[in-house]
């Protein structure tokens, strides 16, 4: 049995390890096009802030791990998948045949159509190559403009500030991380950033980037500001890597569509991670989540199915956690609430504290918090176990901080209910 995995990110590596475990005799090959050993994009912010060196971002120890588990690593780009011949063509024109194929190709950063984004001072922040460019240009005291305050923009914000640069953030939405936090929470985060000396422009867009005489650039904003910058970072969205599937029978939508077994419309081809449009726990719809825990879950479940251990995926919960210069925010599931649901809210702007719980009937279905670091995982437990909270819901409506107590009382035998 020959398993081929395209993409050496977390989804691909975890799938390879799972395949090795379930199918010791099979050949397992990962084909990845990045020049480094398999690494985690999530570690990039810590590389930017000099917390770790490049090797600290590696998913596994490359000198021993892959050989120990007989996982073949090929550093090439897959140009084409032929799902009829069950063959892939690599950039060196060689071909490989597969019995089962996993698409774990992730996504790549895309830029909006703003003039000047092709200048050498402009970079996205998606790969280790990008990170090296950023480190080179983000010298202490340099002016840096970050376009986009979505999740990726915000997650690198702290690392940039630690490089002692002068940061301006431009976001077209009316608040920071608009797809993770509501008005109140996003507003708190914005105020926190402003208090820390970051120039934040929301409901504002970049109109152009032009080369300046001193080797830097000038960034023009829709509110009329003109900003000098040694470095412009775009964090304006991503797009799935699916070009090699052109002409195949594999169904695509926002990503590669998969069923409950992570199988695509071609029964020998599976997909996992950022490239896969898999089931969302909260909505039951097929969505691209683009987060690390989902990539890990997808990779494992796809591999179990590829190895013949039929395993059903019940959906992954969308969840994020962000540390912005010491202020931790997180969100889970349907944090924006459901029609006819109830919410519990604690809003303490002076202390930068926020808790919002969203209920559907007696179940917690979503949550977001700011300024809370202890026991937040239990929000996942409460949501995913669909615990009927009974009278604990009334308590949570009055005091949304008692999430741990609600969980323990609802799941453990305490000798009372």
């Amino acid at each position, binding site marked *: 049995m020959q398993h081929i995995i395209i993409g050496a990110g977390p989804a691909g590596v975890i799938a390879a390890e799972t395949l090795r475990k379930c199918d010791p005799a099979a050949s397992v090959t990962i084909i990845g096009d990045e020049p480094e050993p398999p690494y985690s994009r*999530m570690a990039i912010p810590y590389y930017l802030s000099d917390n770790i060196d490049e090797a600290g971002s590696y998913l596994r120890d490359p000198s021993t791990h892959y050989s120990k588990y007989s996982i073949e690593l090929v550093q090439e780009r897959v140009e084409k998948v032929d799902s009829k011949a069950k063959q892939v063509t690599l950039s060196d024109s060689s071909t490989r045949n597969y019995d089962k194929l996993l698409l774990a190709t992730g996504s790549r950063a895309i830029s909006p159509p703003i003039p000047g984004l092709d200048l050498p001072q402009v970079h996205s922040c998606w790969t280790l190559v990008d990170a090296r460019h950023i480190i080179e240009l983000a010298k202490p005291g340099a002016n840096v403009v970050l376009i986009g305050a979505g999740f990726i923009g915000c997650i690198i914000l702290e690392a940039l500030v630690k490089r002692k640069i002068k940061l301006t953030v431009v976001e077209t939405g009316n608040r920071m991380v608009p797809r993770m936090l509501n008005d109140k929470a996003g507003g708190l985060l914005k105020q926190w950033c402003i208090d820390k000396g970051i120039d934040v422009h929301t409901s504002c867009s970049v109109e152009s980037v032009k080369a300046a005489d001193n080797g830097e650039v000038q960034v023009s904003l829709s509110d009329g500001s003109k900003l000098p910058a040694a470095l412009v970072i775009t964090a304006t969205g991503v797009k799935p890597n699916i070009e090699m599937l052109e002409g195949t029978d594999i169904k695509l939508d926002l990503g590669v569509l998969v069923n409950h077994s992570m199988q695509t419309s071609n029964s020998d081809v599976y997909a996992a991670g950022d490239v896969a449009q898999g089931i969302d726990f909260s909505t039951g719809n097929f969505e691209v989540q683009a987060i690390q825990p989902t990539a890990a879950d997808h990779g494992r479940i796809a591999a179990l199915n590829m190895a013949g251990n039929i395993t059903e995926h019940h959906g992954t919960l969308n969840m*994020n956690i962000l540390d912005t210069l010491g202020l931790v925010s997180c969100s889970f599931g349907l944090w924006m609430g459901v029609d006819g649901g109830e919410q519990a809210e604690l809003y303490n702007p002076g202390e930068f504290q926020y808790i919002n719980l969203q209920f559907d009937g007696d179940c917690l279905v979503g949550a977001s918090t700011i300024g809370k670091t202890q026991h*937040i*995982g239990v929000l996942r437990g409460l949501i995913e176990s*669909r615990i009927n909270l009974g009278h604990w819901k009334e308590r949570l409506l009055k005091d949304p901080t008692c999430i741990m107590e609600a969980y323990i009382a609802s799941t453990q035998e*305490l000798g009372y209910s």
Partner: protein
Amino acid sequence: MQKSLHIDPGKCTGCLQCEMACSYDNTGTFNPSRSYIKVFTFHDEGRFAPYTCTQCDEAWCMHACPVDAISVDLATGAKIISDDKCVGCKVCTIACPFGTVNYSQATGKVVKCDLCGGDPECAKACPTGAITYIDADWTGYDRMMASAAKSLPSAEATH
């Protein structure tokens, strides 16, 4: 035979000796807020429930870690954090559905129960036997963990 922490909330009097012992062993200070085991108080019922990582089989924290910083201690079965590798990204803290791996502002890393390498301080400090460290099979603890895990639908069912 692997052992595990067995917690009997009915015996807990809320004395917080476990939190003191844990924080002292792990941070060198008697500071319950930095303990890895936490006693939750149910005021209305006048009850207490010590709670910490169950070293669950699913190890959600370990699988979510992007840099391989969490591993299984083969001697005790504990899931342990490598401070050298942990970058402090906190993804494990939202992945653990029991809320038992937590970020420490003091260290910039996450912290969780590591069973003290096989001789847990909390169990030794507990004066009432509410926390004991005993053979896993005798406690029904596995069953409890299994049922807690089963209540999470994303734990896959194999047909």
